[in-house]
C-alpha cells in the first residue's frame, strides 16, 4: 500500500468514527479529480458543482462498505463516472444543444477547421471557444458509456486497466468502448461535413 493510500485509509477510518475534518481532507484530496471527470463528461454546466457535492455525499453514505485494501481514487472516480452516465442518460434530449447554439456560419467554419491538423492553440482566441463547442457537441452525441470511457482514456490519459476499474467492467470491454467512441466520433464528424457539402452544392446551383 502506498503512503497516499495509507493516509487515505486513516482519513476514512477517522471519518467513520465521526471526524468531520478527516472527511473534508479526503474530499480536498480528490475534489480536483472528481471535478475534472464531471466537467469533461457532463460539459460546462452550472450543475457541475452540485454534481461534485452529490458524488461525495454518495461516497460518504457508502464509506462503511469501502474495502481499505483497495485505493480510494478509483473507487470515488467510479462513483463519479456512474453518476455522470446517469445524468447523461437523463438529459438525452439535450444532446445537440451546444451545437445548435452556434450560428450556421460558425458551424461551417468550425467544422472545416476541426478537420485540419496543426496547433489549434495558436489560432484566434474567439475561434477557440467555438472549437471547444464543436468538440463538446460531437461528444454529446455519443452513448454515455462510450463517452465516459473516451474521456478517461483519451482526455485523462488513463491506462485501460484503470478505465476498466473506474467503469466497473473488464479491460476488454473498456477497450471496445474507447474504440467505438473513436469510430463514432469520426462518423458523426463526417456526417456533419457531408451535410455541409450538400448544402454548399445546393447553394451553388
Amino acid at each position, binding site marked *: 500500500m502506498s503512503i497516499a493510500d495509507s493516509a487515505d485509509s486513516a482519513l476514512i477510518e477517522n471519518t467513520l468514527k465521526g471526524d468531520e475534518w478527516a472527511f*473534508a481532507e479526503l474530499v480536498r484530496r480528490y475534489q480536483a479529480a472528481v471535478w475534472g471527470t464531471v466537467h469533461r463528461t457532463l460539459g460546462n454546466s452550472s450543475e457541475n458543482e452540485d454534481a461534485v457535492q452529490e458524488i461525495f455525499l454518495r461516497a460518504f453514505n457508502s464509506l462503511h462498505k469501502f474495502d481499505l485494501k483497495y485505493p480510494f481514487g478509483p473507487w470515488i472516480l467510479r462513483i463519479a463516472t456512474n453518476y455522470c452516465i446517469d445524468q447523461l442518460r437523463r438529459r438525452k434530449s439535450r444532446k445537440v444543444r451546444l451545437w445548435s447554439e452556434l450560428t450556421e456560419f460558425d458551424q461551417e467554419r468550425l467544422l472545416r477547421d476541426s478537420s485540419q491538423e496543426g496547433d489549434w492553440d495558436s489560432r484566434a482566441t474567439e475561434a477557440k471557444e467555438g472549437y471547444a463547442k464543436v468538440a463538446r457537441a460531437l461528444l454529446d452525441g455519443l452513448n454515455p458509456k462510450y463517452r465516459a470511457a473516451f474521456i478517461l482514456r483519451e482526455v485523462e490519459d488513463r491506462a485501460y486497466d484503470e478505465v476498466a476499474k473506474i467503469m466497473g467492467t473488464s479491460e476488454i470491454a473498456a477497450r471496445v468502448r474507447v474504440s467505438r467512441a473513436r469510430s463514432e466520433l469520426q462518423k458523426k464528424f463526417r456526417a456533419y461535413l457531408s451535410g455541409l457539402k450538400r448544402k454548399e452544392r445546393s447553394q451553388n446551383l
Partner: protein
Amino acid sequence: MSLCNLFDKYRDGEMTPSQKGEFESHLAACTSCREKTALLDNLSYFVKRDVPQTADLAGQIASRAFRQNRSWDALILSWIRPGPVLAALALAFLFISLVWIVPEYRQLNILSEYERFMDEAETINLSTSASQVSNDSDLVLWLQQEGNPQ
C-alpha cells in the same frame, strides 16, 4: 487485413517500433486515419483545456455530509449488503418451508394412511360382517382388535 484496423493499437501506443513505422507509412497515405487522428487530437485538446478551476468545496461537503437528515429507511438501505440479504432470504425460505410445507406433508401422510386403512377394511369387509364397522372410530377399533392384516 487493412492497416486501418490497427488504428487503436497505434493510438494507444501498443505497437512495436517496426509496426509503428509501418503504420506511419500507412498514415501518410490514408486520409481516413489521418482525419481520425487529427479529430481525436483536437477533441482531446479542447476538452482538456476546457476545465475551469474548482472552488474548494471540501468544508461545505463535509459539513453537509455530517448534517444531512437521512430518513430511517435510507439509513437502513445504505447498510444493506446484497450478500447478507440473500442469505437472510434463503434462511427465511427454509424456515417457512419447515413450518408450512413439512407439517402439510405429514398431514398428507396421515391422510394416505387413513385411506389405506379404509381400503384394507373394505377388502376385509367382503369376508366379514358389515355390521362390525359402522363408522370411522369403529373401523380403527376393529383394526386394532383384529390386527393389521399386513
